[in-house]
């Protein structure tokens, strides 16, 4: 029996990232100052991002691992997500008294899971990547052990996550039974060869996969976990998991549905359209009545998943590119908003109620100004990036003939202005009631600067990012 080691060069980013996570885990033993560990993590991720561009593309381990433009673009989103999340965590986890080194290594392990998902060419690998990502996030959600809400968040996320994994596995096993393979490309060719596209059991497995991925991207009606988990989890982790796992979910949704079930496009579009409408409706309407800002942003993140789903529904490269573009923009504006929220948390003051923002413009004009930019961007008001993201998504959906769906999306988008701009109104038009003191730090300032600049620059010069996304997807 001869064994050949597969070509490891294309998966260099994952290997370096794994090494980094292990180094960070061990460094925790030796280094007392946890800020140093955060610095090691960020420098390491920057190095991994470098290897991403020098590693050759292509498939390895058979076709279980695929490195192409599509996966590279998503990995860039994950790296931005992890660096910004670490930046806003450094001070925050000290305030929460959970300043442990494992925090950073778990974030890195979760990111490895996302990278594996984005590069998965096989359903088994996809599942394992998803579990790696999810398992680390469950622990991170419950990281504040002395806070009962954090415990609740972790437990709910874990139980419902395990439930959705069961759907995923059932779906995968049905596909395997039908096609005899778990390889995504081989599934596609088998389905078109044997004319299985209209098979009811294939449709059932597609529905199960929609349930499982819908859970990860927090699409209604599989969104039930999101508000409780986003509220209870440490704020930095809420920022992390409202961007990373969501983007990873979209990455696998795009690859599995566009490649493996390419010939059943009509079928899954029929399933995804009501899901998208319901997601936008639930997210935007329930957000109106929230009093907790983390809960409100949880519903807002559900709504944004609905908009991004339009990109998948169009089922062409244009739609996918605008979806990727949207997720990149969402990473900046959402983490930016959380970077402001995190500043309000100080010793003995939770600062996550919307009423805490009353009169913030008078006491802390700069923070209020930044929050204003992020809220405008989340609403989709020009000249911010959020407007561009929505514009491209809606344009690609109209070009694909879904004008009525875009009309619905625009209506819900208009509704969303109410709860985003309510915060702006509170900050600028009310008198301060409570004495809010901000917890500022250099690293959080860096995160705020980066996100603000990104939101404004992408808003003014949008073409290059979209061109990048289009170029990334050209060989898909």
């Amino acid at each position, binding site marked *: 029996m001869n064994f050949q080691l597969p070509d490891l060069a294309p998966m260099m980013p994952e290997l370096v990232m794994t090494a980094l996570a292990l180094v960070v885990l061990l460094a925790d033993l030796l280094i007392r100052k946890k800020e140093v560990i955060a610095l090691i993590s960020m420098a390491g991720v920057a190095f991994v991002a470098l290897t991403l561009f020098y590693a050759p593309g292509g498939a390895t381990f058979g076709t279980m691992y695929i490195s192409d433009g599509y996966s590279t673009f998503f990995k860039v989103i994950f790296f931005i997500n992890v660096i910004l999340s670490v930046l806003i965590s450094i001070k925050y986890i000290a305030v929460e008294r959970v300043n442990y080194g494992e925090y950073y290594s778990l974030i890195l392990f979760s990111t490895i899971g996302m990278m594996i998902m984005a590069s998965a060419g096989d359903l088994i690998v996809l599942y394992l990547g998803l579990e790696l990502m999810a398992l680390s996030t*469950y622990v991170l959600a419950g990281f504040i052990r002395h806070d009962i809400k954090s415990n609740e968040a972790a437990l709910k996320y874990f139980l419902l996550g395990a439930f959705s994994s069961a759907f995923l596995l059932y779906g995968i096993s049905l596909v395997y039974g039908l096609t005899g393979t778990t390889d995504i490309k081989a599934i596609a060719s088998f389905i078109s060869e044997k004319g299985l596209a209209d098979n009811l059991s294939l449709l059932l497995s597609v529905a199960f996969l929609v349930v499982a991925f819908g859970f990860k991207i927090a699409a209604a009606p599989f969104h039930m976990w999101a508000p409780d988990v986003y509220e209870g989890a440490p704020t930095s982790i809420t920022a992390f998991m409202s961007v990373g796992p969501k983007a990873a979910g979209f990455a696998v949704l795009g690859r599995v549905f566009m490649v493996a079930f390419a010939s059943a496009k009509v079928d899954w579009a029929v399933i995804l359209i009501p899901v998208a409408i319901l997601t936008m409706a639930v997210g935007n309407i329930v957000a109106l009545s929230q009093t907790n800002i983390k809960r409100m942003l949880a519903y807002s993140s559900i709504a944004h998943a609905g908009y991004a789903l339009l990109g998948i529904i169009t089922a062409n490269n244009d739609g996918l590119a605008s979806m990727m573009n949207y997720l990149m923009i969402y990473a900046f504006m959402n983490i930016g908003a959380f970077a402001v929220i995190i500043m309000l948390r100080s010793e003995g003051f939770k600062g996550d109620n919307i009423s805490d923002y009353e009169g913030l413009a008078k006491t802390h004009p700069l923070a209020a100004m930044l929050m204003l930019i992020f809220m405008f961007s989340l609403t989709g008001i020009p000249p911010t990036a959020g407007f561009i993201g929505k514009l491209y998504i809606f344009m690609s959906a109209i070009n694909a003939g879904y004008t009525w769906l875009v009309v619905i999306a625009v209506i819900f988008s208009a509704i969303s202005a109410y709860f985003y701009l309510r915060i702006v109104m509170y900050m600028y038009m009310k008198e301060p009631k409570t004495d809010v003191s901000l917890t500022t730090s250099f690293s959080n300032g860096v995160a705020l600067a980066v996100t603000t600049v990104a939101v404004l620059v992408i808003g003014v010069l949008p073409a290059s990012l979209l061109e990048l996304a289009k170029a990334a997807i050209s060989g898909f």
Partner: protein
Amino acid sequence: MIQQAFFAYFAFVITILSLLIVTRKNPVHSVMWMLLLFFHIAGMYLFLNAEFMAAIQVIVYAGGILVLFLFAVLLVNIREELQIGKYIGAAPTSFTFAVGLFVVIVMSLRSFVAAPPGIYSIELIKQETHTKALGKLLYTEFLYPFEVASLILLVAIIGAIVLAKRRLKS
């Protein structure tokens, strides 16, 4: 014929046992039913000519995981079940959904066409032995998922330590 009878027995008993596990009020009873369930699943593997899987099922699940379950039940020391009000009194709704899902699954599965079998026929496995075939695949074709699984286990260990071992600071 005898094969179908075997399968029917195992499938039926496994379903019943799973129901018993999730409906018992006493956790010790649940764990005991689970032990029986694991043996039946091992029997199913044997019946599929997968003797290695059957042995692993008994050793790892029945021998290892179940004992841990028992320890957990023992250490938590639940005298009485915690009685809290239900958030939603939605038993009829969930029952309707469950029945609906069951009907949908049964209806869709009627159009199921099994794919042609792969290269690992029963004869080939008999010739190669099950353990060897499995090991060979696991370390060649499926090396990548195998390594990813090791990372998942590592995260599970870290998670358990982070969540359980750290001293509470209030």
